[in-house]
C-alpha cells in the first residue's frame, strides 16, 4: 500500500464512527428530538461491543452487542424525555456523563487485553483496483454499513411517506398530532435508531479503529457527530461529506506531527475541534439554509392536549 493510499484508508477509518453516530443523530433531530447523549451511547457501545467480542470470540457478536447497548441506553433517554417529558438538553448531558462512568466500570477487567478485530471483507474484483480499490472495497462490515445507512436514511427521509411524517413531526409536532401522526411513537423509534447507530459507532472504535478497550476512548467523537449534523444542515449527503472532511483533518494533523512540522502538537490535536467551531459559525451565517432544514420543534417538549 502506497503512502497516499494508506492516508486515504486511515481517513475512511477515522470518519466511519463519525458517519455512523451522526446519521443516527440526524434522524433523531429530524424528528424534533435533541439527544446530546451521543458520546455516552457511543462509549457504551464501545465497551459492550468489546466485551461481547471477548466473551464470544466473535467480532460480529461484538458488533451486535454494541448496537443493542446503544439502543438500550437511548431507550433510557427516550423514556425520560418523551414519556416523562424531562428536559432534553439536561437529560442528554446526563446520559453522556453516565455513559462515560458506567463504561469505565464495565470495562475495568478488559483493560490491556488484546482485542478481536472485525475482519476485512474484500469485494471480489473491485478491491484490487489501484489506489481506491482497498479504500472503498477492502473495508470492514461497519464501513459498508455506514455508507448504506446514509443512502438508506436519505431515501427514507425524502422518498417515503414514513420519512415525510417524521420530518413533519420535527417541523411542527402540534400540527402533526392534530393530523393524527403518532408523535411520541415515531420519536421513540427515531431515538432508538439514533442509539443503535451510536452503539455501532462505538463498536467501530473498539473493534476496528483501535481494537482494544481504553477508558474514554470515544474522545469527544460524539460531540463532533452532533456538530456534523448541524454542519450538514440536517441533510444526509452533506453529512457524509462533512464526516470525511473531519476525518481528513484529524488524520492530516497526525501526519503533520509525524513529519515534524514546527507547530506544537497540542495545537495540531486541537485542529479537528477548531474546524468544528469554524464550520458551525460559517453554517449559521446562511439563514435560509437553516430555516428550511432545521427542525423547528427541535428540543421542544411535546405533551398532547387532551
Amino acid at each position, binding site marked *: 500500500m502506497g503512502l497516499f493510499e494508506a492516508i486515504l484508508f486511515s481517513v475512511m477509518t477515522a470518519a466511519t464512527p463519525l458517519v455512523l453516530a451522526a446519521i443516527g443523530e440526524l434522524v433523531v433531530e429530524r424528528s424534533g428530538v435533541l439527544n446530546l447523549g451521543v458520546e455516552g451511547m457511543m462509549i457504551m457501545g464501545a465497551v459492550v461491543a468489546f466485551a461481547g467480542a471477548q466473551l464470544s470470540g466473535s467480532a460480529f457478536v461484538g458488533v451486535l452487542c454494541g448496537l443493542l447497548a446503544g439502543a438500550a441506553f437511548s431507550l433510557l433517554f427516550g423514556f425520560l424525555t418523551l414519556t416523562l417529558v424531562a428536559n432534553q438538553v439536561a437529560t442528554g448531558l446526563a446520559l453522556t456523563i453516565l455513559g462515560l462512568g458506567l463504561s469505565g466500570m464495565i470495562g475495568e477487567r478488559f483493560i490491556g487485553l488484546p482485542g478481536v478485530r472485525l475482519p476485512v471483507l474484500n469485494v471480489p474484483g473491485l478491491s484490487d483496483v489501484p489506489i481506491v480499490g482497498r479504500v472503498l472495497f477492502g473495508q470492514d462490515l461497519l464501513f459498508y454499513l455506514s455508507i448504506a445507512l446514509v443512502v438508506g436514511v436519505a431515501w427514507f427521509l425524502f422518498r417515503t*411517506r414514513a420519512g*415525510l*411524517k417524521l*420530518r*413533519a413531526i420535527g*417541523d*411542527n409536532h*402540534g*400540527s*402533526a398530532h*392534530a*393530523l*393524527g*401522526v403518532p408523535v411520541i411513537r415515531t420519536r421513540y423509534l427515531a431515538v432508538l435508531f439514533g442509539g443503535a447507530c451510536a452503539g455501532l459507532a462505538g463498536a467501530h472504535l473498539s473493534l476496528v479503529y483501535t481494537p482494544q478497550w481504553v477508558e474514554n476512548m470515544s474522545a469527544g467523537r460524539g460531540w463532533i457527530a452532533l456538530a456534523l449534523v448541524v454542519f450538514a444542515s440536517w441533510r444526509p449527503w452533506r453529512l457524509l461529506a462533512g464526516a470525511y472532511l473531519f476525518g481528513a483533518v484529524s488524520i492530516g494533523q497526525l501526519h503533520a506531527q509525524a513529519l515534524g512540522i514546527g507547530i506544537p502538537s497540542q495545537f495540531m490535536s486541537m485542529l479537528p475541534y477548531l474546524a468544528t467551531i469554524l464550520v458551525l459559525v460559517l453554517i449559521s451565517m446562511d*439563514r*435560509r439554509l437553516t*430555516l*428550511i*432544514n*432545521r*427542525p*423547528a420543534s427541535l428540543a421542544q417538549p411535546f405533551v398532547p*392536549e*387532551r
Partner: protein
Amino acid sequence: MQASATSEGDRLLALQELTKTFGSLRACDGVDLDIRPGEIHALLGENGAGKSTLVKMLFGVLAPDGGEIRWKGSPVAITSPFEARQLGIGMVFQHFSLFEALTVAENIALSLDETVSIARIADEARSLSQAYGLPLDPFAHVADLSVGERQRIEIVRTLLQKPELIILDEPTSVLTPQEADRLFETLETLRGEGKSILYISHRLDEVRRICDRATVLRHGKVVAACDPRAETVASLAGLMVGGEVATVTNSPNAGTDQALLEVAHLSLPSRSPFAVTLRDIDLTVRRGEVLAIAGVAGNGQSELFDALSGEVLAGTPDVIRIGGAAVGQKGITQRRLLGAGFVPEERHGHGAVSQMRLSDNMVLARHRSDAGTFLAGGILKVLKRGAIAKAAARVVDAMDVRKSGDDPHASALSGGNLQKFIVGRELDRKPVLLVVNQPTWGVDAGAASRIRQALVDLARSGSAVLVISQDLDEIFEVAHRIAVIHHGRLSAPEPAASMSRERIGLLMGGAAPDGASPGPGEAADAH
C-alpha cells in the same frame, strides 16, 4: 332534503348536551347543535364563548366530558382527528396547521391515504385547486407562501379528503375582499354539491351573506339559533355579547398641519428569505388624525411596523421623524421617550410576555418612560410594586379587561382581553403618536369596538394614530385617511370618505394606482 318533520335522517350531525370543562371553567355547557346536509351553518360567539372548544371536540382533538355526538343519526365517539376524517369531517384551521419546511404537496400528502404517491397528490391538488378557483403550486415550500396561499392549501387539503362536513375557522380574516368573494363562490359550489359547512367568523356581514342558519354561543351555552338573513349585523352582535355593541363614533378629520410622524423615502432590504423588502415608503401622520394602512398579510406590514417602532433601524436618521426629531437610527426606548407608543401584532411573546403577570408586563414596557413612577432607589432601580399594580389596575378598569384573579399571567387572558390590556397600557401614557399593527386580530366584537373607539378618541384628543390592519371594516370605522401596502410599496394616502372597498381591493391586489387622485399634499409614488 325531505320535509319529514322530526326524523333524524335529515341531520348530518347532531350534538346533544355536549359539555367540556377545564378545571372550574365550563368551556362548553350542554351545547345542542344540528347541521343539515347542504347548508352553511354559522357558529357565532365572542372569544372565549366556547367555539374553538366545541369545534375541537367535533374534530377529535379534545374529548368531551359529557353529551352525545350523532353522525347521520347514530352516536359516535370521535377520539382523534383521524377518526373525524374517516367519518367525513374536514377542518380548515384559523391558525394554519401547516409545516413550513415542507412543500405544498407534502403537506397535503400528510393528511391523505398513504398509498397515494406524492406525484399523484400534486396532480390532484393542482386540478382541484383550479376547479375551485384556488390556484396553487404543489412544489412550492410553504415558508415562501403568503397567508392567503396557505389558506388555500388548507382548503384544498380538506377537499381532497372528500368530506361531507367542512369546518372553517375564521377563513376570511387574512383575505382581500376579492379573495373572500372567490372563497364564497367556492363555498356555494360546495353547498350545491350537497356538502355541509360549519362556518366560524367574527364578520357578521359575511355570515348574513352566505350562511343559511346560525347558532350563537355565549359563555359556553347556546343562547340563540336563528336565520342570519332575518337579522341585522347589530342584532347578531347583540346576541353574541348579550347586550348592545357600541358602534364606534368617529369625528371628521381634525388633522392639523402639525406632522407627528414623518417617513420619507424609507427603504429597507428584507432580513430573511421570508421577509418583504420595503421600497421607498413615504407617509405623514398629523396631530388629530387616524391614518390606516390596508393590505393583505405578508406585504410588508410587519417590516414597516418594525422600522417605525425601532425594532429594526433605518439606514439614515432622517428617514423617520417623530415630532420633528430624526429617529431613524434610534431604538425603541428612545422613540418611546419621545412620546411614541407601539402595539405589535403578536400578543404573546411580542406585545406581552405570556408567562409573566400583567403588572410585570406593565413595567417591561414602561420602565424607562415612567421611571419616575415605577422605579425608586436611584441607580438601584427598585420596582415600586404598589405603583405598578395601581397602574395595571387603572388600565384594566379603563379598558374593561376581564380576567380571573388579581394579577393573572398574561397567558391566562383570552386574546381579546390581553389585547385590550396591551392597547390600554400604551393609551394610559397618553402617547403623542401611537402605531398599532392589527389591533383587533382574532378579537371578539365587543372588545374590538372598545379598542377601535379608544384609538379614535386618542386621535380626537390631539395625538396621531397609525393603524396597520387587514380588516377593511375596521379601517373604515377608524380611519380619516387610508393607504394600501403591496409588495413593500405604499400607495399615496387618500381621504377615507373618497375611498371605496373596490378601490382598496384593487390596490391590495397590486393594481397600479393609475387615475388615482393623489392625497392632499402627497405626491403619488410614480415608480
